[in-house]
Every structure is written in C-alpha cells, then in structure tokens.
C-alpha cells in the first residue's frame, strides 16, 4: 500500500517534469527558424537539468554525511570555496590569462582542487572521532565561519584586482539561470553523470551511514571510505553546478525539504532520484515562467534564494535541525 503511494507520487513527479520540459521546448514556438530555436532551448534545458540534478544530489549526500537536514553544501561554504579558487585564478593569471585558459581543462583543474580542499576541510570536520558529526551546533558554526572566510578571502583578493579583472570575477559570482555557461555543459555532464551514478550505487551504504557512526561501524560499513566518497561526490557536483550557473545558496535546501515532505521515509536511492526530479521541475518550470511570461522582469535565482531563505528560517524556528 505504502509502495503504491510512493509509486504514484513518483509517477506524477516524472510526468510533471516531462510536461515542464515539453512546455520549455515547444511552447510559443513561432513559424520561422524552428530548428535554431529548438537547438537553443535544448541546450539550455540540458544545462538546467544538469544544474538541478547536481545541486539536489549534492545536498542529499551532504545532509546524510553531516547528519542533519538544514545543512547544505552552500551553507557550509562549498560554493564560496569554488569562487575563491576562481578569484585566485584571475588574480594570479590576470584577465587575459584567465580568459585564455581552455575552458574544459580549467574546469577540471578547479574541480579537482576544490574536491581536495573540501575533503581536507570538511572531511576532518565531519569525520573526526566519535560523535563529532553529531555536534550540530559546532558543525554549523564551523561551516558558516569557513564560508565567511572563503567569501572574505575572495572579496579581499577582489579588492586587489583591477576593475576589469574584478568584473570577470563578478560575472561568475552571481547565479544566473538565464545564461548558463553552455561551453561547460559537456564537461559538466562528463563529471556529474558518473558522480550521480556513483551516488545511486552508494545508496544502500548511505542508508547505513544514516544510522549513525556507531551503528554503521558495528554493521561492518567502511565508515570513513563511504564518508569520504560522499563528500568527494558532493564537492564535484557543487563544482559542476557553480561552474555552470554560479552559486545558489538555498536551492538545495528547498529541494531536500520538498523531497522529505513528499517521501518522508524514502531510502537514499529513491531520495536522490526524487530530489533530482524536483530540482529539475523547479528550475525548468521557474525559468520558463520568468523567461516567457514575466519577460525577465524578475530573476529566478533571486526568487529561489528568497523562498529558500524563508524555508531555512522556518526549519530553524520549528527546531527541526536534525
């Protein structure tokens, strides 16, 4: 009975994503240059889906590793770390040098660097000794401090840059769903799809991880390996979404919250899939609405951040920090 309810909800979600994608692709298609418009829309749709799925999977993974439901990679400063790396690159190479770097390899190096740094910082924070991850207040505070440190570092270096270089940094510092970085979609997909596949494969292990360290170790799970693996996947997926669209602080929180609301007792495989579907639905439908009907009068990222911020406060006030 329960399974049937879950299946119906999942089916409706898939259907909704399909409808949103069809609307995005075919609504308002004029008579002329159809191929051109369709190709343009397709490119953007793929980017939005990739961004949504990356943010969703990264958030679910991170919430399991950090053992609570209000932390997201963004709140803990993952994307701030990515921006710091970008700013450092501009500062060291200059605007021309930065622009001359081939997009793909640059992206791969940045991702590798970010993954290594994230593992060094957050791996120590979340995996050290017994019970350290259970200390929610300390984890959140340390994460927030790290996030501020990364942002302040990026800001400090930004102040030292000349105006042209600063403009280059600014361009990558704000989320813009209307103009995803199309050149990186292929590279992003090449990293994100295997990462998501691995996350799905890890699903049952993540379920055991969710029982807490004592239980997971007692059941024979290689706790540190699974923790580190999940953190590495989180870093890769955040790097992909940040490279494609810029930092999005609260999208992951909204998506994870909705997933928990719709599928409260879902195991990780189902949770990962549904979170990815919900994120894709929000982004595609939202962007469609803003581009086609609101004439770009408002920006989707601002609305998402606003709604996410309110949800974050609501979760805090309700005391559901676990």
């Amino acid at each position, binding site marked *: 009975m329960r399974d049937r309810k879950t299946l119906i909800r999942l089916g409706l979600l898939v259907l909704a994503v399909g409808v949103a994608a069809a609307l995005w692709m075919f609504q308002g298609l004029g008579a002329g240059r159809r191929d051109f418009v369709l190709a343009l829309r397709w490119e953007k749709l793929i980017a939005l889906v990739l961004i949504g799925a990356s943010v969703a999977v990264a958030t679910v993974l991170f919430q399991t590793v950090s053992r*609570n439901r209000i932390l997201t990679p963004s709140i803990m400063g993952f994307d701030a770390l990515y921006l710091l790396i970008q700013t450092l690159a501009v500062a060291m190479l200059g605007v021309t040098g930065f622009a001359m770097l081939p997009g793909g390899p640059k992206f791969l190096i940045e991702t590798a660097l970010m993954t290594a740094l994230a593992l060094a910082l957050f791996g120590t924070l979340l995996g050290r000794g017994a*019970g350290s991850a259970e200390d929610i207040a300390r984890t959140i505070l340390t994460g927030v401090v790290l996030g501020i440190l990364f942002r302040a570092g990026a800001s400090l270096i930004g102040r030292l840059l000349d105006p042209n270089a600063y403009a280059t940094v600014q361009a990558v510092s704000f989320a813009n769903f209307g103009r995803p970085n199309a050149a990186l979609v292929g590279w992003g997909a090449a990293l994100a799809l295997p990462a998501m596949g691995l996350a799905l494969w890890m699903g*049952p292990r993540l379920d055991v991880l969710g029982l807490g360290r004592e*239980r997971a170790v*007692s059941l*024979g799970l290689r706790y540190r390996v699974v923790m580190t693996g999940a953190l590495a996947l989180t870093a890769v997926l955040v790097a992909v979404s940040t490279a494609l669209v810029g930092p999005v602080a609260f999208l992951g929180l909204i998506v994870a919250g909705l997933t928990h609301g719709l599928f409260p007792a879902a195991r990780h495989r189902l949770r990962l899939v549904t979170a990815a579907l919900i994120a894709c639905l929000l982004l595609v439908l939202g962007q469609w609405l803003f581009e086609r009907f609101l004439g770009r009068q408002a920006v989707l990222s601002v609305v998402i951040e606003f709604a996410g911020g309110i949800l974050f406060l609501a979760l805090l006030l309700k005391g559901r920090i676990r």
Partner: protein
Amino acid sequence: MSGTGGIDVRGVTHRIHGTTILQPIDLSLPSGKVTALIGPNGAGKSTLIRLIARIDPLQTGEVTVNGLDVRQTPSARLALEMAFMGQHSGLVSRLRVRELVAFGRWPHCHGRPGPKDRAAVEKALADFDLLPLADRFMDELSGGQAQRAHLAMTVVQETPWLLLDEPLNNLDLAHARALMAHLARLRDEGRSVLIVLHDLNFASGWADHVVAMKDGRILAEGVPAEVLTEPRLSELYDTPITVGSYQGRPLILHHL
C-alpha cells in the same frame, strides 16, 4: 556463526585529552557465557566495550575476538563475529521499526534481503514484542520501545558475540527481565554476551561471569558469587552495600 574462541584484551590503555581512561587492561572473556561488566560511573566500562567493538580506535594493545585481531580484520568480517549496541542511537533517516531491525541483516545481505533475512527480522520483532509496532516510525515510539527496536536490530545480526552497553536503559522491569531472559536463551544456543549493567541484581541473576571495573582497572572478575560480595562491592562503589542471598545467588541491597 563460528561461536568458538573468546575475547582477549591485551595491554589496552586509553587516554582522552591527556586523561587516562583505561590503565593497561588484560582480560579474557569466555565464550558461551553472559558476562556482565559492572562498576561505578567513569570506571571505563563503556570505553572498554567500545574499543573491543572497534567503535573507537585502539591506542595501544591488542584485542582479538574469536581469534580475529580487531585492528587488522576488515570491519565487514568483524560484523559477522560481533554486534554492538551503544548508548547513543540518534537516527537521521525516518525509519519504521521493521526497517530499522532489517538493517541488522546488512552484514549478511548488504541491502538485498532474502527470505532467510526476512524471516530472521520477523522472529526478532516477535521476540522483542515489537510486532504491533512494526509499522510505526521510530520517532513515534517511547524511549523503551525504541530501545527494544535497537536491541532487536542488534540480535538479528546473528553474531557469535553481542556487546551491549547499558541496554536496560529506558526499559521497564518486565521488558528488562525479558531481555535478560532472551540473552540467556541466546547463551544456551551457544552465543556469547558482554553486557554493561548498572543493576547488580540483574548481573547476579543472569550473568555467568562478572567483571568489576574501577578507575580504568579491572578490580575483580569471576562467577557472580565471587565478585558480588559485600567487601568487593563496598570498595567498588565507595559506599556500604549489603549482600544477602536468594535462590543461591547474591541479592544486593544498597538502600539499607
């Protein structure tokens, strides 16, 4: 279940932030028995059982369980030899009781339960009086009910050794007694139990072997009649304790 051998602890010490929690411990725990680990707060009981269960890493010394070196043996292999239940069991995922208990089969089926695993889960639910609660969420249960669910999950792991850190917490008298009787039945089936207990009469009534700890040391060990004596217990807890006798076993009276 291999069920042979025992637990050997050799030269194990433990320090936390410069404070010595365990002095060098040498201990051999017999298999096929219920062994109670007793002692006052801060004696090092939980630390010792967690080190044996490889929940915390060994700093010095060596622990073997059924001949397997805890430091060297893969955790998945050890999960077939011993199951541990600690005092903290905060869950992040929202789980129903049956789902939680089923996780105990992970070392056997790695998330793909077969008919044997499902049957073991149903038996554990019945043994711990959990069938009426099986479809309830864990966060809807009382402390004692949740404790029983965690116990069922530990027992369903079907390991030769069960390591239980204060499992009677939150249990009412009837369920505490039922748990000890259940452990005695498992002992009769050839399994071994190491259990941290604060209620000395449960240790007296159900344990075959008692280990008394104080200040990170083993103060005494042996059959209940040898360890649960007035002088030993008064020294152990730094308070006068009277020991009587009931059905041939020590009866501890500490409120007189």
